[in-house]
Structure formats: C-alpha cells, structure tokens
C-alpha cells in the first residue's frame, strides 16, 4: 500500500523529515499499526512516534489511532497542536 507521509511540529524537527512516500505492508492498515511499523526504524523514530506523543490526520482530517488507512492516503503525523 503506497501512502504519503507528512510531518509537522516536534516529529518533523526531530526526525529531520517533512514528507516521504512509503510503501507500507498490508498489515499496517490503521494509524496505530502504521506508527508501530514506523517505530521499527528504531532510535529517534521509536522515541518520537510513541502513541502518546503524536496526533494524526488522514487526508487533512484529524483521525484517531484505530482509523483505517487506504492506498494513496496522505497521513500526517504531528505533535499536539498549539496555535493562536
């Protein structure tokens, strides 16, 4: 399954990536599973992408960890928002 990942806030800075195209295994079909799969990259990834540290969006809508991911989705991973 091919998806686009975009990063904002703390994970963008600490992972030193703002966007990437990835081919994720079929079993990483929810946000929770996708984060777990990305944490396998180790080190700072395992630390930064802990479920409690990040929030997500799918196709520009906030989404929670059980949300399903489809082919060609844009998945955003970011720290809790703080505007205004």
């Amino acid at each position, binding site marked *: 399954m091919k998806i686009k990942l*975009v990063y*904002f*806030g*703390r994970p*963008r*800075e600490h992972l030193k990536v703002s966007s990437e195209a990835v081919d994720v295994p079929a079993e990483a079909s929810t946000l929770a599973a996708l984060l777990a799969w990305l944490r396998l990259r180790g080190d700072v990834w395992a630390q930064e992408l802990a479920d409690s540290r990040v929030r997500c*969006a799918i196709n*520009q*809508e*906030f989404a929670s960890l059980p949300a399903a991911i489809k082919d060609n989705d844009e998945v*955003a991973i*970011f*720290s*809790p*928002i*703080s*505007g*205004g």
Partner: protein
Amino acid sequence: MSVLIQEVDFDLAAELLALRAGNSRVGAMVSFVGLVRDFSHDETIESIYLEYYPSMTEKALNKIIDEATTRWNLINVRVIHRIGQLIASDQIVLVATTALHRGEAFAGCEFIIDYLKTAAPFWKKEQTKVGSEWLETRASDVKRMEHWHNDTTGK
C-alpha cells in the same frame, strides 16, 4: 468570510475597515488580537516559530468559521494567523467578526478563537536562552473550547 495564513504582519485598522465595508446593516464589530508574550515558565522567550499544515489548516479554520457564522448569524468574519519567526509583542492572530448586534459579534469571535486554539493545526516552538521547546495543547484551552458544548445559543 476569509482566512489568511501569512508571515507578514497585519494592519488591524485596515482589516476592520475592510471587514465592514459596504454593509450598513453591521451594528457591531469585535476583534481579538493575540500577541507574543516574552515569558514562559519563568524563562525569557527570545522568539517563537510557528508552522502549519497547508490545506488542512485553512479547511479546519473555515469549518470553525462556518459553524460560528450559522450559530450567531455573523455577517462577516476575518481570520489572519501568522507563521514563521515572531518576537515578543508581535501580533500572532486576528479574529474579527461583524453582526447586527454586539452579543453575536462577541460570542462568535470568542468561539472562533477558542476553537482555533484546539482544532486548527498550528505548531508553536518557543526559543529561550536555555533551548527550544514545542508547545502542546493547553488543558485550559481545551476547557474553554468545551464550555461551548454546553452553550446552546443558536443550536
């Protein structure tokens, strides 16, 4: 109704003039301007840095504005949010509303800034002498947003 996300500063007087231009039904205009403070957790802030999610941020703000407009019959709304590097006393955000009467203009403006704080994707990093830190959603902001759930005006 319009949303602008920009690095440059805004001119409050010019924005307000434009917001009510050509509509003599407007009986009330309310504006909120958020400013950069120079302190946080007893540390002096040297600067802050703001980023956003192009397309999602505008979408989220428009949704908030639509809800406020319906709920309080707002005539016009302007939201400007700055991004990039800002220093103490800089203007960060403008929310301005017009309505027939002050009650609607006040409530609509407050609703929009309360929701912006908790539902619009912006990320703020504070730079102090000891380092930098990404801020997280404040519990007090979530509380302010949630109080609107119990307010049934216009619902």
